[in-house]
C-alpha cells in the first residue's frame, strides 16, 4: 500500500500546523521509541524509499 501524498506534501502539512524541523525530529524520535514498527509502516505508506527510511529511523534512535 502506498499513499498518494508525497513526503514533501506531508512535511508541508506538518509545517502548516506548526511542526517545524526541530519538532518533526522530535516526532520521529517519539515514533521510533514508542512504535518502531508503526514508524516503519508509516514511512513505507508515504512511499519513502527503503534507503531513506533506514536513514530516518537510525537518525531517530
Amino acid at each position, binding site marked *: 500500500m502506498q499513499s498518494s501524498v508525497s513526503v514533501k506534501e506531508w512535511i508541508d502539512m506538518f509545517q502548516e*500546523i506548526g*511542526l517545524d524541523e526541530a519538532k*518533526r525530529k522530535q516526532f520521529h524520535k517519539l*515514533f521510533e521509541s514508542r*512504535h518502531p514498527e*508503526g514508524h516503519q509502516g508509516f514511512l513505507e*505508506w508515504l512511499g519513502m524509499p527503503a534507503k531513506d527510511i533506514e536513514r530516518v529511523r537510525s537518525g531517530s534512535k
Partner: protein
Amino acid sequence: MHRGGGGASATASFYKKVMKTYTISKLARAFELSRSTLLYYDRIELLPASGRTASGYRTYTATDYRRLERICTFRQAGLALEDIRILLSSRGSSCAQVIEKRFREAGQQILDLRNKQRLLSGMLKKLASDDSTPTVDKKMWIEMLQAAGVADRSMSCWHREFERRAPDAHHEFLASLGISEEEIRQIRGWSRKGKAARDQD
C-alpha cells in the same frame, strides 16, 4: 586396443597422439565432480577407466567422456546410480521401465510441492490479514502529535489541509489508524466545510 609393443611409455605417448585421453582429475574438473566420485563410479563399474598409464594412473577416453555425460544427465533427472547402470547397459523395455518409474516419482514430487505451496500461501494470507490491524491507532497518533507539541486546534487544521490536498490519501490514512468508516465520514465532512465552520487559525 593397441597394447604392448615398444615399452609402456612409448604406448602411452602413442595413445596421447592418437586419441584424447583424460586423467581422473581432468575429467572430474570437466564435469565439476570430485575425484572420489569418479573413483567410486570406477569401483562400482558404472564408469570404469578405460586404461592405465605406465605408472598405474587411470586414463579415460573420449568414449568414457560421453558415457559420463549421459550419467550426469540421468543424475540430474534424479535417477539412482543402479538405474543408470541398467539404462546404459540395456536397450528397449527395461530402459523404458526405469524412466517411467522416475517419471511417476517426479509427478508425485510435483504434487507434494504443490501441497507445500498451498500451505505456505495459506500462511502468508493469514499473516497479511493479521497485519491489517493497525500497529499505530488513532490514540497513539494523537498522543505522539501532542508530545511533539502540536495543539489540538492545529490537528483540525491538519485534517482540513489533508482533505484539501489529497482527499483519498486522507481517507486511506484514517482507515490505516483503524478509525471506522462512520467516523472517517464525519472527520472528512467537517474538514471539507473548512475555515468557515471551524476555528480560524
